[in-house]
């Protein structure tokens, strides 16, 4: 299927950074786990390609696949190792202060619940509320309430650090 190959090539080029960033945030900045998770999300994208009906943009569609892959990863990971994602990520001493800033970011996001973490990452990525609602599958009004609550939680987390 040469068309699917070409399409996948272009989606991969356009959305790899977005998927990687989301996965990295989900696993609290752990690069190895983020790479594995990104790979998994992209494999799921490839497998789902024939199911794409054009009801949403490719971006929203890939967000859905990434969110579902992250939630599945968590489930599978818990059955293999209860603590993998829950552990705080240790950045090596040799890395720069830029990494420390990133670590602060991932640490703050990481203190949220899994679904809240995924939602806030889409907010930070400036995805429209309508699109986030269609990724998660809840109403926009429900999402607004959720985001308000998540932001409040995040402010408390950040002020305590």
């Amino acid at each position, binding site marked *: 299927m040469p068309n699917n190959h070409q399409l996948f090539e272009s989606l991969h080029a356009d959305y790899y950074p977005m998927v990687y960033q989301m996965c990295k945030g989900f696993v609290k900045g752990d690069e190895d786990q983020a790479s594995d998770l990104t790979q998994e999300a992209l494999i799921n994208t490839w497998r789902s390609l024939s199911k794409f009906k054009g009801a949403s943009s490719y971006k929203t569609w890939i967000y859905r696949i990434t969110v579902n892959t992250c939630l599945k990863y968590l489930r599978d990971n818990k059955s293999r190792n209860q603590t993998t994602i829950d552990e705080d990520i240790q950045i090596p001493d040799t890395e720069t202060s830029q990494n420390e800033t990133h670590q602060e970011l991932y640490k703050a996001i990481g203190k949220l619940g899994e679904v*809240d973490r995924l939602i806030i990452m889409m907010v930070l990525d400036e995805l429209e509320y309508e699109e986030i609602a269609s990724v998660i599958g809840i109403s926009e009004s429900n999402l607004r309430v959720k985001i308000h609550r998540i932001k409040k939680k995040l402010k408390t987390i950040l002020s305590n650090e």
Partner: protein
Amino acid sequence: MSDPIDDLKNKWNKAKTSEPDQASTSHLIELSKKKMRGAVKMHIGNIAVLTITLIGISAFFVYVAPLKETLSHFGIALMTGGLLIRIVIECYSIYRSSKVDFSETAIAASKKTMNFYSYRKRIHGPVTIGILIAYTVGFYVLTPEFTDYLTTTQVILMDTSYLLAAAIFGFSIRKAIKDEMRILDELKGLQEEIVEA
């Protein structure tokens, strides 16, 4: 004082500049095929083991020990029937697992996954236990006719070794049910987290 959420947004955008190592699409496609082959092999492996067992048992009772009593025929029917049902269930499970769609909304995908695990819990629970009981009853009702051909020691050895195998199998069923129940609980928690405002 700046808004902490805006600060977080800035950090998020800065974090985007870190260049990840990208796996090529051809590598990903190859990996996808490899994983698919692995999953198919595992499913086929399970079905193959069950089918070989079924053929082996059937062949044993046709060619090696053609038992004559009605009670024994009933026992053989319970044993082979149970295995046959398990094979059909295994095939249906492959079909059900292939229905998981990652491109659905998170709530729809988690509902479907939950349905799948509820089904698995039923399969690993009452259905498999029922099959194991039927197989066990089938096995033990053969004992009276076996005593006509085997020594008492051989029959005792056969009956007790079956108990050991059944205990191991029972333990693995228990473990599978516990795993499925844990995943179901997690999925329920996830659903609640998604819908709660």
